[in-house]
């Protein structure tokens, strides 16, 4: 093992043998209690909050179009409010990709909160920008960056006029820079989820930018805790009946060491369970080729990960290998892709399934006679085959079946008309039908995801620390 190199220009820091990074949010919409519980339940150094999923950026972009002061994860403001004493008085630092498509506006909102609570002097907000490629899109395409869809190979020009947002996934470097400049709340836009955890480990242990094994270890630590309680007993299939006290579930914490090994644990007196099986389940979640987990900082090899139980609710992770990253960054592009609506009706015993099947046929015939054309109509029978299809086998006269029909297409009027055809079935379709209390299905505009790659060199991030 080589000794960690020193980054010049950063202020002196405590030479720590252990750094604790706590996960307080696995997605926008996760448990509001979690951030406060993570800073109050025991000592932690960093609180990591992950708010962004693939489609979140486009939702935020729509909000920003309506109001230029919006476009960030508003839950973050409440989260900061709930942990403010820990940040202002106990030195816990927060790293979050809550900035969405408007990190400066997010930072302004956080400054207001700090001011309101009289702790402005104790808060230094680091703002990372530069991931937003939307204003540069035409310039980039014109200068030879086709931003082709990674799955289909199509050039972005095919949907250019419908693009809502375009953000490069950025890595740990700007976050490390913000920490070096003394920020105790770091707000980013489209950082990778894993960089939010790796950056503080890299910063505190002064890992070099080419220390591939340790950077990979930090990324894998990030992958394990980026979905919050999903590694500490939540959504855990293994022995799920005996996982204790999920009502009081403890969110995971990384206890990192300078050599890159780390322990996943949770605060005492919390529920859930951290075990080799619970961590293994999270490791395989959303996994692609395990040899190559590509990030802007490093390529991590999941086949090098070793796990061992190191006490109750403690799993040690070690042996991780990494290698240099590619010359590209992934770009998350969102574009308008038509409209959809999904409606449901419930049919009861006896013969619930044949009744629901007849209703489906009747509805489709009516749509057909109306001349409505859709890209796609999907019928599911919830309670019979919605999730496992033919693998579920025969249904044995179930007590009820939910008929669930969805349509999508470019024609909004056709989708709207579909939503009017469901309710009449209650009176003019097969019998024993109920469950229409929710009213007409909602027509939604589809914002679809367009993954692409771009040359790293054209994406420049900027770090500003507000005092």
């Amino acid at each position, binding site marked *: 093992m080589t000794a960690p190199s020193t980054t010049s220009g950063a202020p002196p820091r405590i030479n720590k043998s252990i750094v604790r990074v706590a996960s307080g949010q696995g997605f926008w919409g996760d448990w509001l209690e979690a951030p406060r519980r993570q800073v109050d339940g025991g000592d932690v150094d960093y609180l990591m909050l992950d708010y962004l999923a693939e489609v979140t950026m486009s939702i935020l972009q729509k909000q920003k179009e309506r109001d230029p002061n919006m476009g960030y994860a508003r839950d973050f403001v409440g989260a900061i409010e709930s942990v403010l004493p820990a940040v202002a008085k106990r030195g816990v630092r927060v790293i979050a990709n809550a900035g969405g498509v408007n990190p400066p506006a997010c930072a302004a909102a956080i400054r207001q909160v700090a001011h309101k609570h009289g702790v402005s002097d104790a808060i230094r907000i680091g703002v990372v920008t530069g991931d937003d490629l939307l204003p540069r899109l035409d310039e980039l395409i014109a200068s030879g960056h086709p931003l082709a869809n990674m799955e289909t190979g199509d050039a972005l020009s095919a949907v250019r006029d419908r693009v809502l947002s375009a953000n490069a996934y950025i890595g740990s470097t700007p976050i490390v820079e913000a920490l070096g400049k003394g920020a105790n709340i770091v707000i980013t836009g489209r950082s990778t989820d894993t960089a939010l955890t790796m950056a503080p480990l890299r910063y505190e242990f002064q890992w070099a930018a080419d220390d591939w094994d340790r950077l990979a270890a930090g990324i894998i630590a990030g992958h394990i805790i980026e979905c919050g309680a999903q590694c500490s007993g939540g959504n855990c299939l*293994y022995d799920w009946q005996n996982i204790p006290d999920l009502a009081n579930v403890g969110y995971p914490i990384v206890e990192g060491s300078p050599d890159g090994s780390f322990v996943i644990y949770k605060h005492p007196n919390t529920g859930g369970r951290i075990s080799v099986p619970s961590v293994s*389940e999270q490791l*395989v979640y*959303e996994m692609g080729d395990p040899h190559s987990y590509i990030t802007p900082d490093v390529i991590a090899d999941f086949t090098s990960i070793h796990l061992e139980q190191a006490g109750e609710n403690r799993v040690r992770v070690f042996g991780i290998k990494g290698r240099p990253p590619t010359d590209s960054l992934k770009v998350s592009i969102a574009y308008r892709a038509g409209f*959809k609506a999904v409606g449901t009706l419930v049919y009861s015993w006896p013969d619930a399934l044949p009744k629901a099947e007849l209703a489906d046929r009747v509805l489709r015939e009516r749509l057909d006679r109306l001349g409505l054309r859709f890209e796609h109509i999907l019928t*599911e029978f919830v309670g019979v085959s919605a999730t496992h*299809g033919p693998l*579920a*086998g025969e249904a044995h006269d179930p007590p009820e079946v939910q008929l669930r029909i969805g349509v999508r297409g470019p024609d909004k009027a056709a989708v709207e008309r579909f939503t009017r055809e469901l309710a009449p079935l209650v009176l003019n379709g097969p019998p024993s039908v109920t469950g229409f209390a929710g009213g007409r299905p909602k027509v939604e505009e589809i914002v679809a*995801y367009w993954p692409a790659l771009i040359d790293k060199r054209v994406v420049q991030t900027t770090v500003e620390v507000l005092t």
Partner: protein
Amino acid sequence: MKVRLLDIAHARSGDKGDTANVGVIALKPEWYSVLERYLTLDRVTHHFHGVITGPIERYELPNLRALNFLLHGALDGGGTLSLKTDAQGKVFSTAMLRLVLDVPDDEAKAAGLPGVTVWPSYQRSQRE
């Protein structure tokens, strides 16, 4: 001997576009070799025939006693385009666990595998 995957493995699934991934993890470390040998690409492809529209990829992670499968064309377009209840492939994991393996008797006994003598009623190829 017929061995239900449910009895020897646990699993978690997720999505990436129109692809669902299913990670299958041996319940006991010594059962990983059974997964490695009998949970083949062919076997899984047969299992999901008619359920997904694309090919399947298979990866081995002996360090985690796990296999990872990528099921392409599994999510009706995936993400926001999908009209499916399970648009993000969250429960493909349990669909995988419906699979039943054929393991030679001597090998199954040596590994202490919990076998089933009656073919599970939910297995589609043996519908009543």
